[in-house]
């Protein structure tokens, strides 16, 4: 039963990643693309992480996965911020 839920969660996560990737390719400008990417990263990764934790019984491994999730969240939000800020500055410089 738990395995089934876990696999379901992983597939949901993969779906978010897929839609994020499509968004990255199809959306018109940098800011909307960043938006798509952030959604995929945060929600998709969370679903996959929870799914893997359910499959993996060990507490230590679960803590490591949690740490990885936190690190990726921090890194992706900061890098999105930096990219967006740089793009905004360039637009202002162009004006």
């Amino acid at each position, binding site marked *: 039963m738990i395995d089934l839920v876990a696999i379901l969660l992983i597939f949901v996560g993969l779906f978010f990643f897929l839609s994020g990737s499509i968004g990255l390719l199809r959306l018109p400008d940098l800011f909307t693309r960043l938006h798509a990417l952030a959604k995929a990263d945060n929600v998709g990764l969370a679903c996959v992480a929870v799914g893997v934790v359910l499959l993996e019984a060990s507490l230590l491994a679960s803590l490591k996965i949690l740490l990885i999730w936190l*690190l990726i969240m*921090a*890194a992706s939000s*900061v890098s999105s*911020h*930096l990219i967006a*800020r740089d793009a905004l500055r360039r637009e202002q410089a162009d004006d």
Partner: protein
Amino acid sequence: MIDLLWLMVDALLVTLLLILGWITCASTDIKRGITLFTAFGLLLALIWARLRAPDLALAEAVIGAGISGALLLRAINDHKPLGSSTPQRSAWMTWSINLMALALFCVMSWSMWLTLDQVDSTRLSQLVLSQLDDSGVSNPVTAVLLNFRAYDTLLELAVVLTAVLAILALSPMRSAFQPAGVLLTGMLRWLVPVLIVSAGYLLWVGAHAPGGAFQAGAMLAAAMILLHQGGYHSGSGLNLMLLRVLLVIGIALFVGIGLVMMLLNQSFLDYSPGWAGLLILVIETAATVSIAAALTLAFVGGRPDGWEPVTDSSNPSNSAEFNS
């Protein structure tokens, strides 16, 4: 059924890898090429994990994709004017290169296909696993790297040092970035300690699980590079003598311990089984530090101020070089 599923996954990974490799090589826009190269490195790390080579997966993610990508991105500005003005190969040349590559691929694949199912596929692994108990560590890759083929690793550290010596000789270091925004510096404040702890963990765990000096050293260097990116200037306050020692201590301890062991045990790098574990840990720790220093200097791209001993002012052209 499961086998077939795995084969499909493998085929998918291989196809992706070949496509990424091809467009990385073919891309004319260098920024695009570097981005693709980083993605290529991460995909490769995934494939290493799939092929049961977790040590490599770690190394590839940190070094192959991470540090290499950072080095290349930092180099873009150096090469901007070399842009599209250089001539392309003639059509005749292009076709002969294509033909040669195709022929090479066919011949190599054919001979590999003939061989793989005819040769005993365990090769040296039986020998390694049977001697593992005497090596002082239980991770077979670390045993090969730091004991059975330790000499390769020693020379590899010499290669790293040589590259850094060349970089130090060539030019002064790049100027640091401007201090970054609050968000980045805030993140660095807690991310860098986490990275340092992770590097220590990788170093320690390398004795019996995936990890080791190279992965740890590269991760430590990544922490330093992040600090540099964040605008933390380290050039002025740095003790240069300490930096010299950090740079050479990996090889120095490696050779030193090896020579002492030679005087005791008759052959170079011959660790007595009882001591091997401890000696390997000492050597790996020193190597981690040296690799981190080397990779950081490689990213910074040159010598810090005052690296070369200041001589009398008889040669103004060189003292001017310090300031430029």
